[in-house]
């Protein structure tokens, strides 16, 4: 119940240069565009962005990269048909890239939020993405050791929120929101509507309010 209601600019004001930021969304679905736009209006740079993709077209994350605000991207799928800003920054050497398999990215973020110190996964065993990582054969199968991801801030988009910070999502926009909300010092959520406490069925809540720090209504 320490939820803070804010507009987008107030909400992102605490994201400082050098911060790590989890950014929700799979492509544009679930991408917190209003929050990213607000972050663009600050002077925070040297950011580490953890997100599934590295921006699409000339909006959101792509602009953050285009404006050289990002030092490093940790993601599973940077290269897309419309990722020209990422592509250019990467080829120019203006950007560091860590490619992580999508499921491992999700699991590392979950581990960060769940207080797990690290885990062994079969994903990427025997591939270049396991290079330099600890490996272990468990029950006859090769596994790679992966470490948790936590960040200074998470910026996510949900559908509805209540004044206790409980969140529900809409269709495939749910993607990274629920796990990113758990893995940041400050979780900033953009919702289409903020409802009174008691408006959401407790059986339907996907992200309990304990994870939500700042909420921005953006219809």
């Amino acid at each position, binding site marked *: *119940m320490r939820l803070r209601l804010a507009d987008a600019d107030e909400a992102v004001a605490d994201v400082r240069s050098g911060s790590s930021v989890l950014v929700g969304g799979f492509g544009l679905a679930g991408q917190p565009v209003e929050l990213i736009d607000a972050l663009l209006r600050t002077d925070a740079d040297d950011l580490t962005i953890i997100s599934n993709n590295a921006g699409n077209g000339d909006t959101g994350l792509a602009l953050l990269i285009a404006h050289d605000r990002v030092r490093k991207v940790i993601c599973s799928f940077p290269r897309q048909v419309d990722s020209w800003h990422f592509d250019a920054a990467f080829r120019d050497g203006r950007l560091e890239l860590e490619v992580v398999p999508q499921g491992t990215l999700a699991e590392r973020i979950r581990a960060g*939020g769940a*207080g797990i110190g690290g885990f062994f996964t079969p994903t990427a065993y025997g591939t270049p993405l396991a290079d330099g990582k600890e490996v272990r054969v468990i029950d006859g199968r090769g596994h790679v050791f992966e470490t948790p991801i936590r960040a200074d801030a998470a910026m996510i988009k949900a559908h509805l929120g209540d004044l*206790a910070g409980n969140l529900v999502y809409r269709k495939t926009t749910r993607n990274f929101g629920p796990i990113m909300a758990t893995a940041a010092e400050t979780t900033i959520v953009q919702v289409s509507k903020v409802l009174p406490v*008691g408006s959401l069925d*407790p059986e339907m809540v996907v992200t*309990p*309010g*304990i994870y939500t720090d700042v909420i921005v209504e953006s219809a």
Partner: protein
Amino acid sequence: MKPTLDREALARLVAGDIPHGSYVNLGIGQPTQISDFLSPELQITLHTENGMLGMGPAATAEEIDPDLINAGKVAVTELPGAAYFHQADSFAIMRGGHLDIAVMGALQVSAGGDLANWHTGEPDAIPAVGGAMDLAVGARQTWVMMTLFTRSGKPKIVPQCSYPLTGEYCVTRVYSDHAVLLINDGVVTVRELFGISHAELESRLHGVRLSPAARHGRNA
């Protein structure tokens, strides 16, 4: 000298120390009683590790629903803004450091903040740990609520726990009938005394070095 605290007064004292807006887990037994003294204006949200945030008071007659229980398996109620989740998600809340405070009972607490509360170590005892170890490592602060001495008069604050540990270096405060103690980096500070003098406390807690009462108020 203030009188010794009974269980109700102790529960009231702990309740008054929980900051506004906290997320709290109240352990089975004595800590459960704290919820009776949490005023709604404090907007404190209770977590129960069997899968709920926003737990309300114990259910009375017609409210009792066997599908809605707390970690002590007592029928409880649901407050507006509640949420249900499964066990892995519930313990992710605990272990992930998202709870502000866990209040638990204890058999022993060491001067370094080690907690022993799940096992007497007797060879014929049946061990049962539940969520105590997860709470001990996970909550940002672990408070203990207990009597300061056993029925036979032995201190429960000890230089080193003789009972099997629940967690290392986790207890930050002890609320007891005789004293409120703050534990920080191996230093035990006396915050308040009830029905016992500092000198007597020191002599009964042999081997535990006590710092004098902190000057900077109750919420230090």
